[in-house]
């Protein structure tokens, strides 16, 4: 589904990704781990199409289609979802209104009509329940005054609504207490299917206890230096990253 070939990216001339190769097939869960500054979040942003990063070499393909020329919203329409490490506040725009706009814009891009209000509401309720989200929460301004846990839960709620092919979860575990982590992980697990894939980006092994990856990759200094099964995560937890340098 996702194929990354020799990806190089820089910000203001400073190279951060130095030749990443990665393939993710439908139905798989991959985890990317690595120390701070290794380029994990940059990789997530580059896949999503953030413009401040310049891709100097290599490609990112989704289902055989090169994404390079697509704006972030077009990538989203094609099924890329990024759960932000730091979700953005938009004052005055409610969670419901935001997700409604996102869904209808995506449908419009696919040549479909707007989702009827009744179905939309039904779906919102269903997914909110899945993530144990209080109804009142849905009429609050997007991410404004949300606690860390609420923000992350809201990200996964949006993921549930948008049903992406590829979900990239950037440090979704950070700032979550154990109960919130379980809820979020549970949500992700329920959304997992043979048709979609998940890319977890994390610093710690903690999240991987709840969302079990098929593959673990270690990112160091802009390159994947080691790949393995889920046992690699335990090894990293035990030994740290230093032995890989």
């Amino acid at each position, binding site marked *: 589904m996702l194929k990354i070939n020799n990806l190089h990216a820089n910000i203001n001339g400073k190279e951060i990704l130095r030749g990443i190769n990665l393939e993710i097939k439908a139905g798989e869960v991959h985890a990317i781990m690595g120390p701070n500054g290794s380029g994990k979040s940059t990789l997530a942003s580059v896949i*999503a*199409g*953030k*413009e401040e990063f310049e891709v100097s070499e290599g490609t990112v393909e989704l289902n055989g289609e090169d994404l*390079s*020329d*697509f*704006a*972030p*919203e*077009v*990538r*989203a*329409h094609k099924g*890329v*979802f*990024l759960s*932000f490490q730091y*979700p*953005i*506040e*938009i*004052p*005055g*725009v409610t969670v419901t*209104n*935001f*997700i409604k*706009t*996102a*869904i209808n*814009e*995506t449908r419009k*891009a696919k040549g479909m009509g707007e989702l009827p209000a009744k179905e939309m509401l039904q779906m919102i309720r269903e997914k909110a329940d899945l993530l144990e989200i209080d109804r009142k929460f849905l009429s609050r*301004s*997007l991410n404004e005054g949300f606690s860390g846990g609420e923000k992350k839960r809201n990200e996964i709620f*949006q993921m549930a609504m*948008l049903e992406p092919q590829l979900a990239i979860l950037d440090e979704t575990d950070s700032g979550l207490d154990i109960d919130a982590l379980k809820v979020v992980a549970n949500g992700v697990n329920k959304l997992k299917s043979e048709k979609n894939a998940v890319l977890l980006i994390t610093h710690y092994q903690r999240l991987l206890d709840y969302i079990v990856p098929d593959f673990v990759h270690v990112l160091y200094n802009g390159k994947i230096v080691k790949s393995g099964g889920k046992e690699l995560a335990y090894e990293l937890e035990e030994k740290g990253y230093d032995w890989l340098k």
Partner: protein
Amino acid sequence: MGKFTEDDLKKELETKEYEYGFYTDIESDKFPIGLNEDVVIAISKKKNEPAWMTEWRLDAFRIWKEMTEPEWANVRYEKPSFQDISYYSAPIQKPKLNSLDEVDPELLKTFEKLGISIGEQKRLSNVAMDIVIDSVSVATTFKKTLNERGIIFCPISEAIQEHPELVKKYLGSIVPKTDNFYAALNSAVFSDGSFCYIPKGVTCPMELSTYFRINEGGTGQFERTLLIADEGSYVSYLEGCTAPARDENQLHAAVVELIALDDAEIKYSTVQNWFPGDKEGKGGVYNFVTKRGLCEKNAKISWTQVETGSAITWKYPSCILKGDNSVGEFYSIAVTNNFQQADTGTKMIHLGNNTKSTIISKGISAGHSHNSYRGLVQISPRANNARNFSQCDSLLMGDKCGAHTFPYIEVKNKSAQIEHEATTSKIGEDQLFYCNQRGINTEKAIALIVNGFGKEVLNKLPMEFAVEAQKLLEISLEGSVG
């Protein structure tokens, strides 16, 4: 990458036409240009006005002649030449309309283009409408339903004939002829407008609405609205404005007077979308409006305005909180784009005890425009326990525009509690990327963020208007800078 850049947006904005800029081809009866006592008398005659009204107008004209145009507002423009304007223009049609079916079909088409097809309005929402084109009221709907409750809702020209005692008592009582240059001018030459009276204890069962449109070229529009809510009554009143695109400037100088007697409540909402001029700043309406309301005991007046149009806006809907426990509110969104200039805000004059006022002003500036908030909160020495909360937020889009705040706070009573806050912000790159990532394109994202920014004000509008206002915001900012 397929990035939708600021430049693209700007380009798109420039090609954006004013959606309401059509001209209705209706024959009209128009005065030659110029203003003198004879013209004032002629206007009065045309309306078959009683002698006292003619005298009232002449008095206003004499006052106006001695006045000079105010210059303190933060707007720059070429002053209109008051002798180059025609002071009366009326669509020619049957003298009296009994139902909508008798309205000129051209006119009905106009309404449809405005998105306010009368029929639809009738069906969808419980809204009674008065429509003023150029200077004359052409259709008032729902008269019968209103009559049953004793509510008077009619063109002010009709009220002068049929309810002279009310007009005599209240006209000019809140905005005197001497108030300011434009109010004096309006008092001399106003040709029509709406009149509304809600009797004691009556809650008006539907929204009352007036749609104003300047159609004819080279004319000025001077409408006059007088709204009286008698003791314990309630009314919600809506006002919408549009004008066709023309390359000369058109003058609009209206006066609105509201009277809320003891325990009455008036909610007055405006969606103003006069032609703002083209992308070069050519043409557009000069909108010089005096709006003021008086609150008696326990009364409440709430002004809500969404201002997206006009080349120049000069407008301060105000409340005189005379009665104890009276409440004044002002909720405003003002959008300026291209070369528009707006100097708008409110005055809250606290005279009674325990009076309360709230001001929420949201200014959005884009292009080369200038958007100023100017407000006065005045607590008189006798107004014990007065409260005011003001919030003025500005959103800037691009670095060619300006946002200005000029709040005046004057307090002469120690028990007053005043809180004023102002902020400026821009639409963040990170906000746009977040929206993009969820599949929302930049343009839509801007609309979403702007609507969020103005939400506290939009929420105050009656439903039917809120939708239209949101659409207007989108249109007037479409393609603005990200």
